[in-house]
């Protein structure tokens, strides 16, 4: 049983991009704010902060979730992956990042981290989705530049890149 008074803090610990992370936080603070301000990983973007835009999407135990709609205390013990956790230690891009780059899937790129986290979860479940399936699965992410076509092209490029990585047909 834990009780925390207003403006008091409590300890929270979770795995962040493969490394242990801990902080003392007010329970009212969202996971997204703790990722950005305490862990200083500002790749997770905040658009609407009430669950509409999808920019703040991260992976919780491998599944996409809106980090603005989670209190940091709810992530205690979880495995959290953000956009910073995708590239290899040598800086080489994740295939989804490379594909978005190749397909010009970025305009202002504010929405890109959320789109890419959603895409990674989609392709983990369904490695060769149809364009309609991609549209449906990414419908929770908004792009204010309306660059949707190139984003969808980017996902399809990622399908090909990742299929080639697995040695399959493109």
């Amino acid at each position, binding site marked *: *049983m834990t009780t925390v008074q207003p403006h008091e803090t409590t300890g929270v610990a979770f795995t962040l991009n493969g490394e242990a992370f801990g902080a003392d936080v007010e329970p009212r*603070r*969202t996971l997204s*704010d703790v990722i950005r301000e305490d862990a200083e990983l500002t790749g997770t973007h905040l658009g609407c902060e009430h669950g509409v835009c999808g920019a703040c999407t991260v992976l919780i135990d491998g599944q996409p*979730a809106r980090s603005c709609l989670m209190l940091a205390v709810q992530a205690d013990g979880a495995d959290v992956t953000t956009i910073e956790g995708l590239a290899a230690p040598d800086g080489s891009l994740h295939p989804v990042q490379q594909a978005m780059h190749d397909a010009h899937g970025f305009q202002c790129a504010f929405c890109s981290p959320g789109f890419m986290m959603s895409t990674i979860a989609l392709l983990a479940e369904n490695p060769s989705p149809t364009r309609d399936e991609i549209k449906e699965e990414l419908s929770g992410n908004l792009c204010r530049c309306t660059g949707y076509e190139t984003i969808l092209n980017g996902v399809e490029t990622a399908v090909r890149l990742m299929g080639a990585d697995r040695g399959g047909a493109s």
Partner: protein
Amino acid sequence: MKNPPFVYHRPDSLEAALALLATHGDDAKVLAGGQSLLPTMALRLGPPEQLIDIGRVPGLDTIEVTDGAVTIGALVRHATAEGSADVADNAPLIAQAMPLVGHRAIRNRGTVVGSIAHADPAAEMPAVVLATGATMLASSQSGSREISAEEFFEGYLTTSLRADELLTGVRFPAWSPGSAGAVVEVSRRHGDYAMVGLACRIDVDGGVITDAALAFFGVGATPTRCGPGEEALIGQPPGPDAFAAAAAAVADDLDPTADVHASANYRRHVAGVLTRDGLSTAVEKMGALT
């Protein structure tokens, strides 16, 4: 857009959660998946003084099937129900509703029972509760009780759950082999709240419809059954003639609200169309057309 301060409680047993509700019920909100509660808190719409996070309460994350009836625990997430063979086999209306609930990232966190307790009149699950005649399982320090679907939804975001009660689960009755049902909706974008939606069920015996439920969502302050539409079906063979008669009765009887998304007349029209389409989909999917 930042949450206001609150007292945070994380009980580690059901007893502790009920004790907190007994003490703080009127000033408290229960946090399960948080996909409806946290946006309202971020927008500071009536934020609670006390937040009771039941996320670590054991025993509430189960899907149980007993004699065909499916009981969904308070911590079962939409995504879990969506992927459950038990739900798909025994509670087809829930399975049909799940893909329509929000987006993938929302379904990964939000809970089925939380959506029912939140009682948004435009959400899918409250209408599924009405269409199936599900039973709400409420617990408090003074004991447990069951609340019928008809008695549960009282108004906009308002249920008959008392302030000291926790909705620990919802039991959906066994789905009979002669039943057919569907959940259909019209929304501006995939994953949005429906402008109008319908959860429908018909029971067919001896080639005629013996019972019917047409539960609409997005048409008023609560999910709403349409009696005249249901009466138009009973005693008729399931098919285009009966469905057209039901659609006409629905369009004539429903009195939907108007808002920025749709006029009342448009909603009434769409409700009729959904009646025809939903019932047709139901018999196609479930093969009950005899």
